[in-house]
């Protein structure tokens, strides 16, 4: 026991004395979460729009106020001619124009029906869809609250509800994916180097001619990264909750438990690579190429796995992060319990045991 403890302490010293790996261990998760959560989000914020109000009555003013109050839009309120609007669209100055025709309120009062024209720049279809949806919502909202709804029995109110992400926030979509990606990368890359490093530096030669057993070596190599990864997990969760306004709906303990399980799976992958690689570089490349791409492509957070051709779907089943991604979405975003993720958990457990056993058996007790 004392041997193991000293060995683990030694591994910690290696990690903390190598500034580069330390930077990677803690810098990578933070950068990724901030990058994916903010910069790369497809969420609409402060979209520039123009409201052209030709009616200037009480109703249009109220609707305009509502639009202005929303944080999705940055409203310019100059009354503009059709030509000016067109020029602004072409230059990309505005994303959308909301045009109230003359006599808007009167029309609404007399014919119980008024038309508001919404023109969106659809060169970016996602943004266009999102912004028009917001505007429709705001107008519908006005209908409901102002009491005008009763005066317009025939009006069809489109009820669009975005399940689990009503505001189409970027965060909830990305956080589980980023968690899967970051934990996978950090764990796999760091461990993949751990054992092969001793081989390359020649210290393995001395270590082998000692009473130390392969299992002890493996355990002491993995422990520091397990602890660091759990710290990373908490950093990611705290950042998600505080900066990305993410609400963790499920049981936090279940979430942490599943994450540790996934960390263990990733550590075993790194271990497997480390035992098979000859040089640190090969191990690094193996974990970068072999893990990064499949994780990005086949996890499901960038491209839905369900839409892929069958062979790709089978391949995706072999990627541990795919299962973790499912688990984390269910637990974190939908608030489901263990009963709905036990299958995925079982898959991760099996993968871990399988990889760990193979690695232990393949651990070379001699130099060739």
């Amino acid at each position, binding site marked *: 026991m*004392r*041997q193991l403890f*000293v*060995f683990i302490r*030694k591994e910690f*010293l*290696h990690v903390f*004395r*190598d500034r580069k790996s330390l930077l990677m261990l803690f810098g990578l998760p933070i950068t990724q979460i901030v990058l994916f959560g903010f910069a790369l989000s497809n969420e609409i914020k402060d979209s520039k729009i123009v409201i052209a109000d030709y009616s200037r009555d009480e109703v249009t003013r109220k609707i305009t106020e509502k639009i202005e109050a929303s944080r999705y839009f940055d409203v310019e309120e100059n009354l503009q001619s059709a030509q000016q609007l067109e020029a602004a669209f072409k230059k990309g100055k505005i994303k959308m124009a909301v045009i109230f025709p003359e006599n808007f309120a009167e029309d609404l009062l007399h014919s119980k029906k008024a038309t508001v024209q919404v023109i969106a720049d659809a060169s970016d279809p996602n943004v266009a869809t999102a912004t028009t949806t917001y505007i429709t919502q705001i107008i519908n909202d006005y209908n409901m609250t102002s009491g005008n709804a009763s005066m317009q029995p025939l009006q069809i109110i489109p009820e669009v509800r975005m399940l689990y992400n009503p505001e189409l926030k970027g965060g909830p979509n990305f956080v589980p994916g980023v968690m899967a990606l970051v934990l996978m990368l950090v764990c796999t890359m760091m461990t993949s180097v751990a054992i092969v490093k001793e081989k390359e*530096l*020649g*210290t393995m*030669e*001395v*270590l*082998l*001619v*000692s*009473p*130390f057993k392969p299992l002890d070596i493996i355990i002491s190599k993995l422990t520091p990264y397990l602890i660091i990864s759990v710290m990373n997990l908490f950093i990611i969760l705290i950042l998600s909750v505080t900066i990305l306004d993410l609400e963790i709906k499920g049981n936090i303990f279940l979430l942490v438990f599943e994450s540790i399980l996934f960390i263990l799976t990733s550590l075993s992958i790194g271990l497997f690579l480390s035992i098979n690689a000859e040089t640190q570089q090969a191990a690094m490349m193996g974990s970068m190429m072999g893990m990064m791409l499949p994780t990005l492509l086949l996890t499901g957070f960038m491209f839905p796995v369900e839409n892929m051709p069958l062979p790709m779907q089978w391949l995706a089943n072999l990627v541990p992060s795919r299962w973790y991604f499912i688990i984390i979405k269910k637990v974190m975003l939908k608030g489901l319990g263990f009963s709905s993720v036990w299958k995925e958990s079982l898959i991760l457990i099996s993968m871990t045991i399988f990889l760990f056993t193979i690695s232990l058996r393949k651990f070379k*007790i*001699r*130099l*060739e």
Partner: protein
Amino acid sequence: MMISVSHITKTYNKGTIHAINDISFEVEKGEIFGLIGPDGAGKTSLFRILTTLLLADSGEAKVNDWDVVKDYKKIRNGVGYMPGRFSLYQDLSVEENLNFFATIFDTTIEENYHLIKDIYEQIEPFKDRRAGKLSGGMKQKLALCCALIHKPVVLFLDEPTTGVDSVSRKEFWDMLMKLKAQEITILVSTPYMDEAVLCDRLALMQEGKILTIDTPEKIRASYPLQLFAVKTNHTYKVLNELRNYKDTESCFAFGDSIHVTFKTPTDEKTISKYLSDKGDTDLTVEKIEPTIEDSFIQMLKN
């Protein structure tokens, strides 16, 4: 016998390269046994087979009566090994390294401090320095401490003083002499002849074979011819002229002089005359006793 090797053969690349070719020898308890030979002679392979890091293709080897294949765990517990390449943790300090190796062998620095005291005192002022930042000599002293800390029965030292300054080399060997007095058996390889003569017995290896095994004195005494040393300021020119001499058996530069032997008995005057005829006057020729290096060069030639 502390180490016994019988008919060990080791090949690489599917049998195409013979690293060790049918080697047998024995080392007694408390002996310092030296392995001498050029690079690629098979010394490191032999060390690795005896420390259970490599499996031999055929043959048997025992260390302290433990078989290198069957009892590999016992050997790993009981021997000390210093590989040719510096193999400690460069990012750990001197003290951390020593502590680490003491602990994994389930002992403490205090318990066996008497064994390493003399060397460790020399590196103790730097105990907080990272091992990677030590000088070559101090690195080797630290590595020796780490290999000794669990009081091994046999010490395997693969070129422990290569690349180390001469003062440190001497200190290192003083240390080995003290360990010998404590009945620790030492198998050591070295490229330095001044170290070779300090061994109790030597094995000269070449291309995976042992050419001879004997005490340094006997190896030196076995030199078959009279050796002459020629000293001159024009070493290169004289060397060529001696090589062209009809009776020359061997001739090579040795330090600041030229060592030369002849096929038939001759004397200093004959050689001086031959050389002065060639225009080399400013030189001395004298009969000398062969050094161990002369003996080895002679043996390697045959």
